[in-house]
């Protein structure tokens, strides 16, 4: 199977965030970035699918130069080649615009299976996969827990529905799968993989290469800046060193909240 996995570079989970001076977004200088969590599981799922069915895995990432770090990591883990949609212009773009651009970058490749994370850790739209599927005229499944190839060129996919229900579907390929976290054990790149990554084929495409003007990729969602949420008035913050704070808390739980 010809498999594509989509990875996005996002601020690392533990990163201490500061808001940029103009309030438009976080201050990115000094932050470390990593592959978004769901996408890491997606890379692993793509590699496992290749290992069970044969074929090859391409990694695609959209972003500025820092996206190369995630691409290298996916190549080191075992992806065979990479497409980098190299642009700084879409960092704050909405999911539908990103999906449109990604679709243009990969539409002529004839992928059978596209694996994406079901949600990114930064903007968190839960949306690129299904929108990408629309543009590529593929079927899609969101919040995927497992996938396996079955007869008839189909994939058997388990995914989460509401109320703790799990649905199993047989979907025809080509298909876009938005994977959930925790669905597999993500491998570490081997030394050999890391050494070999640099020599794997990588293609860079710009928005111009893909035939997009600035107007074509104008975001459909206009963000009006970010802020730390105001703390709800009910939360009582307990100060002091750990021992003091702990004793105060226990006292309050016993006498004030009466729950201990």
């Amino acid at each position, binding site marked *: 199977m010809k498999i594509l996995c989509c990875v996005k570079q996002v601020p690392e989970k533990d990163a201490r*965030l500061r*808001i940029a001076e103009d309030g438009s977004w*976080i201050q990115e200088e000094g932050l470390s970035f990593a592959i978004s969590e769901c996408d890491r599981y997606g890379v692993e799922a793509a590699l496992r699918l290749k290992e069970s069915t044969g074929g090859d895995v391409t990694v695609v990432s959209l972003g500025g130069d820092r996206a190369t770090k995630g691409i290298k990591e996916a190549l080191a883990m075992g992806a065979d080649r990479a497409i980098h949609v190299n642009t700084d212009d879409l960092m704050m773009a*909405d*999911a*539908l615009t990103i999906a449109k651009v990604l679709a243009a970058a990969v539409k002529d490749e004839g992928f059978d299976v596209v694996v994406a994370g*079901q949600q990114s*850790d*930064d903007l*968190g*739209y839960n*949306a690129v996969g*299904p*929108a990408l599927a*629309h*543009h590529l005229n593929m*079927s*899609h499944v*969101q*919040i995927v827990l497992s996938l396996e190839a079955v007869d008839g060129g189909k994939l058997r996919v388990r995914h*989460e*529905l*509401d*109320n*703790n*229900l*799990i*649905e*199993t*579907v*047989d*979907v025809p390929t080509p298909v876009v799968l938005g994977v959930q*976290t*925790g669905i597999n054990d993500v491998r570490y790149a081997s030394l050999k993989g890391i050494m070999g990554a640099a020599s794997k084929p990588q293609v860079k495409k710009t928005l111009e290469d893909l035939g997009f003007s600035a107007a074509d990729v*104008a*975001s*459909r*969602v*206009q*963000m*009006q800046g*970010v*802020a*730390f*949420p105001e*703390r*709800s008035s009910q*939360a*009582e*913050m*307990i100060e002091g060193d*750990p021992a003091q*704070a*702990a004793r105060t*808390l*226990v*006292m309050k739980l*016993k006498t004030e*909240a009466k729950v*201990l």
Partner: protein
Amino acid sequence: MANRILVIAEHRDGNLKLISKEAMTMAHGLDGWEVVSVVLGSGVDAIAADLATWGGTRTIAIESPKLAQYTPEAYVAALSELIEDLKPTAIVTGHSYQAIDFFPRLAAAVDGALIPDVTSVAEVDGKLRCARKVINGKLETHCDPVGDGPWLISLQQGAFPAQSPGATADVETRNPDLSQVVTREIVSIEAAEAGEVDLTAADIIVAGGRGVGGEKFKVVFDLADAMGAAVGASRPPCDSEWVEHERQIGSSGQVVAPKLYVAVGISGAIQHLVGMRGSQCIVAINKDPNAAIFQEATYGIVGDLHEVVPALIEAVNEAKES
């Protein structure tokens, strides 16, 4: 002409979902907008009648054998046709897992603007300005849809507490021809395995998150022991197998409402919050003062949990002795 807002309702096992009632409530909050609701299925008269009691000018029931079970293919086909006909300025639905599946594809199909997982909506300069969280719930942003619509907005569970408007809409049934729509084959729909651990009966729950760390997760059990509590977890510790999956609390796990909930090293992703919000008293311990969990907390301690939790165990034990 008044702006029109279309509310897409969902149902499961013959019942209108609560999240859809919340979406109706949000729509009624817009001043001067015409509210139209829609429900899709096969044999959904009763659900449409229930939906109609949530108000608006009309409730549309879209009936087709192809809609007997939810598939994104049939949903997107039927809704695209309806949207073409009604030309709503805004389309809202609850940010359910089902909506996460079909709503982005619908947004792409109708060439709209999509704003998902929204916590509040206000009309500003003729647009619907939406508040939502970014970076795992740590920051809040307000954003406007660009263009004349349709604007597709999905609403976070619980953000718009359902309030009946006390007026009933007229119900109209449509029977579109969806015979050409190729839907996937549904093999089964099953409840996720429940496991042995039932946290719903516990009076006190101590839950650990990513911040605890794999090697040190034992502190969560130690604190639970001291407090006579059950142990729960947010998703990351379960994904990383620091604890059993059956201890997961949240939208993909158990929904609990104990007297006391102690969240240790849990940042407060919405998927976790919906599973524990109903707790009577919530204690949050986290090193990040901006963690979303503090929004929900009754009491909060900002600090290194590996210092605070041992101190808390000691304080609990002292209190028992005194």
